[in-house]
């Protein structure tokens, strides 16, 4: 692609994005997005959908600038509740709970919040560069993913990521299987028959992911606190000292590598159809734990465990715009809603979008730069405010968290059954915590399982039942080989070592 041409176009995009009107809508989108991200349950999907009618009177460019702002703004806000009260507001911030909340418990909520804003900003900026220069070729490559490739990718993700926290492998796999089982509840994706619904209409749509996530993390945390002796409840969490509100230079240098790797992972995964933010954040966390010099610190409040996944989810969010703008294909649910918004504003999303509406495309891209910058400025001053929430005594804070979870959850689908699922998962999550079972593999399986099943059955339907379809296609074969390598490498290493006792002794 013509680099100079792109730069010129981008500059003209800035002239579109910096009109007073568009600056206003960019700012509005970023603020709404942050709020939507902070509220548990209410995610970017609901936020964009609810505001589409408000854009009926706007021109298409302003409307998309604002709606896109909600999407990436939510990625900034999503980490807040994860860090402060262990409540993952949406799928993309489950991983942030693991170390972010531990940092907060040690009085380091400030640095955790700040580093997630900085990580999101760096990732956003780099990913938009990718959007500008690499969009067309990458979008075409993404089409190579059909059902067999998708299945093999899911297998790879499943095997590699299920032991993401590095605890007991057996327990992780057990939890993953439970997640897979929960994922089969609802309508059979191929025949449309109800499965495991016990004749109840309420279960026909399956179990809501957000309800399970908030239950296993947030509600379980509240219950664990309630179970403590009464004098603990009188205490405040940890009062942060002022100089601890912002990250130290050491925090930043430690996080830089994690942010850059997270950006790369997020950008790549965001191009693939499917639950990109979840895979990207899990993969980033996994990579950081493996590469880290102190893997034992992960889960105890390692700042890299916050920086990497937060960068990854923002990068994935930006690169999800590539298939939307270049091909007119939404790979992620929030971009599907943006596609609807484009249609409503008379813009035909499709391969001709950039050519027919250059002002819209480049204007929106330029606004993303402005939006990310605004979000950084917006989020950093809020850090002390949010960190001070932890000054509230626990006996007041915990009921508030409970109320927050219940109202947030109800706002997602306006569906009471979701609340019961959430509370039930809270109780189960409390027991899991007592016996050291991880919630993260369960959530991963709950997201990936149904998609993996559909891809598997679609592939076999296309091949008329022949399993060869998974190895005949190069991309699919590549993922399967990588999975095999991952499984075989550790035992092989051990075997080699036992054959060569001298090296084993020195190693």
């Amino acid at each position, binding site marked *: 692609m013509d680099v100079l041409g792109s730069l010129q176009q981008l500059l003209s995009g800035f002239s579109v994005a910096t009109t007073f009107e568009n600056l206003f809508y960019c700012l509005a989108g970023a603020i709404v997005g942050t709020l939507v991200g902070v509220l548990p349950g209410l995610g970017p999907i609901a936020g*964009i959908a609810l505001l589409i*009618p408000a854009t009926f009177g706007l021109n298409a460019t302003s409307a998309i600038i604002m709606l896109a702002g909600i999407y990436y703004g939510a990625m900034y806000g999503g980490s807040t509740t994860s860090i402060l009260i262990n409540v993952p507001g949406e799928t993309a911030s489950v991983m942030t709970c693991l170390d972010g909340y531990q940092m907060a418990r040690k009085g380091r909520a400030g640095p955790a919040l700040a580093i997630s804003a900085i990580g999101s900003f760096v990732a956003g900026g780099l990913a938009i560069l990718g959007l500008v220069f690499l969009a067309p070729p990458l979008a075409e490559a993404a089409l190579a993913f*059909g*059902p067999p490739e998708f299945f093999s990718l899911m297998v790879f993700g499943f095997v590699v990521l299920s032991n993401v926290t590095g605890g007991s492998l057996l327990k992780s796999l057990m939890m993953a299987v439970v997640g897979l089982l929960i994922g089969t509840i609802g309508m059979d*994706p191929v025949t*449309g028959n109800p499965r495991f619904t016990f004749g109840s209409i309420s279960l*026909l749509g399956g179990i809501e992911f957000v309800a399970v996530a908030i239950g296993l993390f947030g509600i379980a945390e509240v219950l664990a606190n309630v179970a403590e002796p009464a004098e603990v409840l009188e205490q405040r969490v940890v009062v942060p000292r002022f100089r601890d509100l912002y990250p130290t230079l050491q925090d930043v240098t430690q996080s830089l590598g994690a942010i850059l790797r997270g950006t790369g992972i997020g950008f790549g995964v965001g191009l693939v159809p499917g639950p990109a933010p979840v895979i990207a954040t899990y993969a980033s966390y996994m990579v950081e734990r493996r590469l880290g010099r102190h893997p034992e610190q992960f889960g105890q409040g390692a700042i890299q465990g916050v920086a990497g996944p937060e960068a990854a989810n923002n990068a994935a969010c930006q690169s999800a715009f590539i298939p939307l703008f270049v091909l007119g294909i939404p790979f992620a649910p929030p971009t599907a809603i943006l596609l609807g918004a484009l249609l*409503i504003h008379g813009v035909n999303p499709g391969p001709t979008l950039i050519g027919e509406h250059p002002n819209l495309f480049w204007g929106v891209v330029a606004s993303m730069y402005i939006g990310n910058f605004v979000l950084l400025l917006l989020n950093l001053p809020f850090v002390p405010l949010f960190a001070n929430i932890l000054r509230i005594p626990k006996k007041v804070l915990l009921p508030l968290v409970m109320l927050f979870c219940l109202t947030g959850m109800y706002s997602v689908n*306006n569906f009471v059954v979701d609340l019961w699922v959430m509370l039930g998962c809270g109780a189960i999550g409390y027991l899991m915590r007592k016996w050291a079972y991880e919630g993260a593999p369960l959530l991963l399986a709950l997201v990936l399982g149904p998609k993996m099943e559909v891809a598997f059955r679609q592939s076999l339907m296309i091949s*008329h039942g022949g399993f060869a379809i998974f190895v005949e296609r190069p991309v699919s074969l590549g993922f399967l080989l990588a999975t095999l390598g991952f499984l075989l490498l550790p035992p092989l290493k051990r075997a080699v070592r036992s054959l060569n006792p001298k090296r084993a002794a020195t190693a």
Partner: protein
Amino acid sequence: MRNGRRVIMRSGVVLIIGLALVLGAVVPGLAAEFPTKEVQIIIPYAAGGATDLVFRALAASTSKYLGKAVVVVNKPGGGGAVGVTEAMQARPDGYTLVTAITPLTILPHQVKTAFTYRDFEPVINVVQDPAMFQVRADSPWKSLQEFLDYAKKNPGMITVGNSGAGGGVHLIALAFEKAAGVKFNHIPFAGGGPSVTALLGGHIHAVSVSPPEGIPHVKAGKLRIIALFSEKRMADFPNVPTVREQGVNFTMGQWRGLAAPKGTPPDVIKKLHDSFKQGMEDPAFVKNAADMSVTLAYVGPADFAKLMAQDHERYGKLVEEIKK
């Protein structure tokens, strides 16, 4: 001074309108007494889908004709069964409506739902979208005849994607198969978008879809409409013949309308119908619909009831066939 007089005049006007409203409300038997508060439309699907977009736009344009706000509430789940069940149980006073779209006549055959279309009073049909098959522009089949000839010689070899097992376009594809005397290999996807993506990537041979799905790619020359199941040709593609013109006697499409719980008084239904009809004809809504490439098709309550009854029977037979 002038400002002051304007304020007085304005409050006078407001007073008169207010009095008129009060009088209208106390005179019994007049349709003017409905509505006294906002009217709610339950959409049994997630926000952002085609049904959601159409009825949000319609709600916005209808409010001024109805005199009260029309509010949209999403109650997704159970393939639409959750929201429809709730609407069925709502008080039949005209303040709770539900979108009645094709799956209302499909779902009761597939699962044990608490409702059928008979539990609702039809209000108005708004949209009737043609169903169609699309193939890639570089596909070897240049005409419906070539496509069907190949399908006849190679039964079950042409893969046809659809938006979900047992959904409207899946059943329409099954019905077309029977009408044309061929056999396809039906592949379900999680929505119309993913099926179109798989077609663009060359992982399947064709898709069964309803606009706006795939239409931008047809306009961009990447996809081609190979079989159109509407009665008339589409305004956007005057050169694409329908299958009926080419000798296969088959038309089928998907409708989207509004219904109220059974027992809603006829004068309330009439008031709702008249307001939504005005909303449908509002230029702002007409433009929104055209931008979304959906085909507006007004059908009044009586004919809408017949349409639902006819499709209920038709889909019942089709669902029986998949279950075999």
